[in-house]
């Protein structure tokens, strides 16, 4: 029971360690999602609406990559960023963590977006066409029809990014300064170290924060997803 008490006392009196770790988690996963979203949206529209050879194979590849193990991604990004790799100097920084989370969530976000776009009736595209829309305008119309699926993609992407441990641990290094400020320590990697050290109360507090944050993100997006009025 002592650790539950410790967890709640930390939650009601958050210290610098807890707050800075929340901030690192949010910054890294938020930036990853912000970078991922427009790129994935454009790619998804091109893949779902385009006709080109190898489309089936590409979709299979994306679907396979949706379940990419995060430690494997971490390892690959580590090799890319290491002293021998092409992007040295980034290793063990928040930027490296953003890169590895990007690699991790792009296939997931892309896959969800593609199925959302393919769920839109082809008739909608034809209706837009016969009212005079050009190819770009047709694509934009179909994307707007799939907007709730795009929100789902964003939630899924952010959820995966903020909850994953493997790749941020490998390329971020789980660094916290001596004064208790997190540099590359996220909620998830903090849980790993704290529970290893036997500080179950602290680990539990981080776990609760993580759950509540994911819940809040879902609530906000669920609110946005309500059918709005047309522009």
């Amino acid at each position, binding site marked *: 029971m002592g650790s539950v008490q410790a967890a709640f006392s930390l939650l009601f009196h958050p210290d610098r360690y807890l707050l800075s770790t929340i901030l690192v988690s949010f910054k890294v996963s938020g930036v990853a999602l912000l970078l991922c979203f427009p790129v994935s949206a454009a790619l998804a529209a091109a893949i779902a609406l385009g006709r080109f050879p190898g489309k089936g194979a590409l979709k299979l590849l994306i679907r396979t990559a949706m379940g990419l193990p995060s430690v494997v991604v971490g390892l690959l990004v580590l090799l890319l960023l290491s002293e021998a790799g092409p992007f040295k100097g980034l290793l063990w920084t928040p930027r490296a963590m953003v890169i590895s989370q990007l690699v991790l969530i792009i296939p997931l976000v892309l896959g969800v977006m593609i199925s959302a776009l393919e769920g839109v009736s082809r008739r909608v595209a*034809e*209706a*837009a*066409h*016969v*009212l*005079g829309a050009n190819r770009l305008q047709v694509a934009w119309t179909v994307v707007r029809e799939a907007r709730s699926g795009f929100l789902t993609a964003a939630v899924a992407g952010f959820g995966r990014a903020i909850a994953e441990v493997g790749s941020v641990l490998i390329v971020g290094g789980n660094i916290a300064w001596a004064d208790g400020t997190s540099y590359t320590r996220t909620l998830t990697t903090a849980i790993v170290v704290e529970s290893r050290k036997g500080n179950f109360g602290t680990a539990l507090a981080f776990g609760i924060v993580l759950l509540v944050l994911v819940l809040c993100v879902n609530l906000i997006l669920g609110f946005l997803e309500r059918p709005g009025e*047309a*522009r």
Partner: protein
Amino acid sequence: MREIILARDLHFRYGRHAALRGVDLEIRRGEILAVVGPNGAGKTTLFRLLTFYIRPQRGTVEYFLDGRRTPVREARRRIAAVLQEPALFSADVFGNVAYGLFLRAPWGERLRTRLVRRLRRLHAPLPPSPLEERVEAALSAVGLSGFAPRRASTLSRGEAQRVALARALVLEPEVLFLDEPTASLDPESAAVVEEVIRGFKESGRTVVLSTHDPSQARRLADRIVRLVGGRIVEVVELTTYGGPAPPPLAPPGG
């Protein structure tokens, strides 16, 4: 020139299934042309080719809206079509009917209309923008005045089909394509649609419609083309041409 659309030797196949096998067709200014035939005869494919949604694997479709060949891009802006399924966009009725107008309007007018509509929701007593007036006129032409704020998903099948018709009418196209416009409609909606088609022709514009109801074709059409198995097997003239020329088109926006 009386012929405004010339289709030559159109072929189209979906995989192994040949939907069209050599269709020659000319469409004349101001006529109502009905394409009849059983399901699977190629009517929808023909419409998709004529509206440039798909390209013929052999043959050509050419428009001559001003006596000389009209480029595809321009022709597409001067025609409109209503599909067999209404396929409304998930927006309100206004958003659906205004869709084509928004594509064509300068950004200032789009912005103005959006702003006016948003402010009115805050109870600002604003007069309708010109674009809103055109939408309302099109809606009242299909008997749906006041439906603008309704969400498309709450409409009945007949109402949805009429919104799809209004969405095309509001563009004042020179040629209107209607694929099975009254199939599976209630009698009231079907009567409204037929009345709109007649009114459209009276303004000197051209209508191409498909139907598998022969009596509807005879009621409405000047000419009937029978399509069977991807080929035209019969052309029936119901009114004789050679009379006075059809009246000129009303200026756009009028």
